[in-house]
């Protein structure tokens, strides 16, 4: 099993909440949300 938690890139604004919730449900305590230059978001484990 790969232990790494992969960031998700290209997330549209309206989907950020759902993806963050998936990270949280997976047990990730700190979730980082970064706005990219193209207006999408990258969500990763903090």
């Amino acid at each position, binding site marked *: 099993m*790969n*232990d790494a938690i*992969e*960031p*998700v*890139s290209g*997330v549209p604004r309206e*989907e950020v909440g*759902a993806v963050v919730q998936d990270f949280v449900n997976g047990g990730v305590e700190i979730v980082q949300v970064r706005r990219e230059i193209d207006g999408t978001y990258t969500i*990763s484990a903090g």
Partner: protein
Amino acid sequence: MKIRGWLCAALVVCAAGCSLNRSRTQQLQQVAKDWCMTIRASQVLPAYPLTEDLQVGDIFLVSTPIGEETKIFERKGFLPLDNVIARLYPAGFTEFYKGSYGVNDANVVVPHQWQFPNPTRTTAPTTDWSMAPGAAFPSYTFEIKQGAGASLALPVNAVPVGLSLMRTGNATGAINITQSSTYGLPVATLNGQIDDWADQAANRAFLATYAPSTIETKEGGSRQQQNYIRVVQRVYVAGAVNVSLANTESRGGRADAGVAPSQNVLPAPSAAGTASSAATDYQDALTALNKSIASTSVGGTVEIASASNRGISLNETFPRPLVFGYLAFDRAIEEGGFLGPPIPTQARVTKQIINVPAVRFGPDPNTQKIRDWAAKSVANDEQFVSWLRRNNLNPANRGAILSGTKYRDVRQQIVQELGIE
């Protein structure tokens, strides 16, 4: 009334004693932690206490949850290495060192040729660690206050000996590791050998007993217990240390470590008063001081290098070099005793993020189907997590699995196998 008075007095004495003990324990822990932090500052995990019996290929079982282990690492400064489960004698040293450092016999597993040179020697140096690759570490400075019992906290004998000779309990000091060596193997070389070891039926069965499980917490909830194996890939060995102590007490008055007390570190100069007589006096004083510790339990390992009435410098040579630091990697133990990929221990316990490429967002109808189904009940969610584990997927990676483009086939499989409508 008299009894009440005695009771009060006893309580006061007890409270004072408890407070002193607590303070002493705290200071001992702090000294141990400071030592470890110096080693950690060099990106090396400290081995505490120092030991000769730790080598590359040693495998430990780690059952402490990562959050708890991180807390222990922060609080104590080191990670307890108490559950050794195997010692591999790994191959690959000759390829890695290509004949350097005397590593040229594939049949000899490092560090045996440095630890036990052939033929055996009875006089110093009894080992060949001086042939091993060198290493250097920054010096460690510390402060000792009256009653702290530094003799117990610091892993070198020269400190209590120096304090005893200065007849003080208050001092500042510095420890410098003067003979340091290191050896190791790349993760890629070790990892395959760990797989081979884990593939053996008895080892697989043993590891399987440590597969992930759900355990109940004290609060009545539950959490996933993930166990790891920790594999030592490099060790750092110290052959000798230099300890410098400066007396910060205006009036000394302490003796321990079995050393006969002297009034001053150095005796009064002779009446002649010339430069040559001063040098002779100094040399004689050093010889006398060295003789005074020769008869103690540390005799032969601790030697006074220089001394003045306010300070002392001692060289301590360990009878056999000791491991004081190591590097390791961890592998998660999965269902059936299979092992996950190697992750550097230091990165894991210091919560460093291991850079991995991002997954492109690309949900499909199955994304929401799985989310809704898992949210319906705890049982559904547990079934989902269990499916991920069975299929060698990390449940903590749920964010990527549910909405990443590369996991579309996985989501389809989840929907089919779990019968999600």
